[in-house]
């Protein structure tokens, strides 16, 4: 979002309380949504639940095109539309809901750094595995991505997206990596997260923050999504404190609805 737009949104946001009719848009859950988008969407949902802000999840086939920045997910609150976790955190902060107020400067620096670690390594690895690994792209990503559309549009959109992601991978220097190297990077990232979490319930001791939401979103999605190989999930399962972390957040924030 541009600076001017952001300032405007913050001002408008501060004026109104959180409405009951807030909605979160994402692609179709059963057929269309891909690993990386599902992870981002789950992260935002977890964050909003942690803040205690109610939101309805609505699935639309063209969610990606509706989003102001082209990224999933986005929320529609009142008459504003905000996409991606970073701007959404700022938006809720403007409305007076923040999870990271209790942190001091050094902790906030660490929190931001670890969030960038997840974005830089986990998210990029997810995109790589989905689109740059030929087996996964052909079996899972392309069919799912283009499932709402009929031929020939489905083919065109799928290949266009694949080409776009591959160019991005080249730009960030991941183009020359092999799948093994990517798995190794994921392993390193999980090791760093596991080290940081240690034996605490959340990353910054007693209270969850947006970092917890982001990590939960990605790890839970990887653990519960079927891919061509289970290598990625296996790497995460080797860190028991991350597994119990995911289970804890799921039980605290996502199972109260059914009970």
């Amino acid at each position: 979002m541009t600076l001017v737009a952001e300032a405007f949104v913050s001002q408008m946001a501060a004026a109104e309380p959180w409405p009951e009719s807030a909605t979160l848009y994402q692609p179709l859950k059963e057929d269309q949504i891909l690993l990386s988008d599902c992870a981002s969407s789950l992260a935002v949902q977890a964050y909003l639940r942690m803040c205690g802000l109610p939101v309805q999840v609505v699935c639309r086939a063209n969610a990606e095109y509706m989003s102001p920045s082209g990224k999933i997910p986005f929320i529609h609150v009142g008459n504003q539309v905000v996409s991606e976790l970073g701007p959404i955190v700022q938006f809720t902060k403007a409305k007076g809901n923040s999870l990271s107020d209790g942190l001091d400067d050094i902790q906030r620096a660490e929190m931001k750094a670890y969030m960038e670690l997840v974005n830089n390594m986990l998210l990029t690895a997810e995109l790589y595995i989905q689109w740059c690994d030929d087996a996964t792209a052909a079996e899972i990503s392309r069919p799912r991505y283009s499932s709402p559309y009929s031929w020939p549009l489905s083919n065109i959109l799928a290949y266009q997206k694949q080409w776009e992601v591959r160019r991005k991978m080249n730009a960030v220097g991941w183009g020359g990596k092999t799948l093994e190297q990517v798995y190794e990077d994921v392993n390193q990232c999980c090791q760093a997260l596991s080290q940081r979490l240690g034996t605490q319930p959340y990353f910054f001791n007693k209270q969850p923050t947006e970092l917890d939401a982001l990590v939960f979103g990605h790890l839970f999605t990887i653990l519960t999504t079927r891919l061509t190989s289970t290598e990625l999930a296996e790497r995460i399962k080797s860190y028991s404190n991350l597994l119990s972390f995911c289970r804890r957040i799921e039980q605290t924030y996502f199972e109260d609805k059914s009970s």
Partner: protein
Amino acid sequence: MAAPDELFCWEGDWGLPSVSTDCLVVLAYAQFAGAPLKLKKMSNPWRSPSGLLPTLRTNQKENLTRPSDIIIHLRKQKYNADLDLSAKEGADSLAFISLLEEKLKPALIYTFWVEPKNYVDVTRRWYADHMPFPLNFFLPGQMQRGQLERLRLLRGDESLESGEELEKELYRDATECLNLLSQRLGSHKFFFGDTPSSLDAFVFGHLAPVLRSKLPNGKLQQHLKTLENLSSFCSNVLLLYFPRDGREGGGLKASSPPPPPEGGDFDHVPNKRRKQVLSALAALGAMLSYALLTGMVSIQQEALEEPPDPEPIGGEGEAGEEIH
């Protein structure tokens, strides 16, 4: 012991061992870890084995170009600057390096390659001055297009153009990143204790060019200078690990020392004398060959016994004299 690996990297300027961020990261890490590398500084990327700089050519004739790959290779060879780090510090390293890549790098690409004044006055001029003929005509432009493309892909915006708004957004993220780094560094000498690690190498590589180059549009530079602990961190690293390069560039620092008589580093062209002599020779050669070809001056073979025929020479000589 096996022969040391060869590192091909960009030349240095402004008191730095190299002008490129990636090269600086690799050089700094090699110094911190005590890795012996055969340095080949050059300003012609086509002469490097992979076409890109920096490139590490290992003993197995493999070419590595990404700084992270080069660092992993050096670690495997037991040159590890992160030995003293605890597990949590290692994790923090990884996190802060990611922060640098996501928040600071786009702003650096913008400052040096996309912002019009900086690109024309500093970046393009430096590369055009230092690259050999005929690369200096098209390679800087090609590099600029590559960097702009990279920035577009990093931001996910295909229609990115340089402008006030983009500059504000990028600089806002970058200043936040710099503030966070400054908070993390505090008053320590290095990020983790008294010995430098890979995070120090990455931070040095990203910040040193911004601090040391003279940019016409230097908002990021100004903000960085206000963060004293980061500025003294960079100066410290230069002093301790790159003393030779630091001394050369010492006179180019701002404030008290007067600018060198050539009028600042903009006019510092390498091999100036050699280029002057070559230009003079080329001009002389051109004039002589023109004179010979048009017949103003002619060289005739003199036979040893017979005297030469006086008329043609005299006639031509008169014609030559008349013209002159």
